[in-house]
């Protein structure tokens, strides 16, 4: 029996791959920016620049939220979806 999801998957068999790559690239980007923030905050907080530490913390927190939100769009595990089809 064909439904919308299945015909989509058949028309674009590489879709999951592309999606997964996009999500991982975005996540790596976020984590990279956060590492940069943390590094800057450590250096600056040692100089007594609390304002910088607060700003980077807010930025980092938002990025973490974005990362966790992105995880919602992870493609389903293959096992589960093939189980559903049967």
């Amino acid at each position, binding site marked *: 029996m064909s439904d919308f999801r299945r015909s989509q998957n058949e028309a674009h068999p590489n879709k999951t791959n592309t999606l997964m790559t996009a999500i991982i690239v975005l996540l790596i980007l976020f984590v990279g920016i956060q590492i940069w923030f943390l590094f800057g905050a450590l250096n600056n907080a040692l*100089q007594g620049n*609390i304002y910088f530490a607060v700003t980077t913390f807010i930025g980092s927190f938002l990025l973490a939220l974005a*990362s966790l939100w992105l995880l919602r769009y*992870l493609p389903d595990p*293959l096992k589960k979806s093939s189980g559903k089809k049967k």
Partner: protein
Amino acid sequence: MAKKSSHDHPEKMPTWKSDFPIKEEQVTHVGRREFAKFLGLLSGTLALGNGVIVIKALAFPAKPLEGEHFVCNADEVAVGEMFQFEIAGSKVIPYILIHLEENVWRAFEQKCTHLTCAVRYRKDLGKIECPCHHGFFSADTGEVLQGPPPRPLPRLEVVIRDGKVYVREEKQDQTV
């Protein structure tokens, strides 16, 4: 299912296949899902770490040194020499005292601002040297002259009274 895929040897399923009944495609898929989740977790941890810095800076601000501390007698350190001493507060902080010229004294924290190596005064160069990565600080102001250290050496004010050397927190008026 296994019989279909092992058509090279239809008579027998290899042992490894029955031991790991997971398709390669599924393995990589799961791997990437786990990796993405791990990245999400890492992201949260980094945000937490940034928060800890803020909390630490807000709740435990660096305390200035209180009062004057006796270091040594002034005639114990010849001109151009360096003297190491420590002040115990919430933690023990090592300092160096430098007798730059007649009646010119300097006191700095001994921990390099790069990776906290112990710095020393080089009489021949007239600079403070960090031997670890060849950082140089001005012996006069503690400014970074060369090398990887990102910040100047924290300085103390030196007071000479009755031939004795004391140090105290520097007054903050001449900061940059």
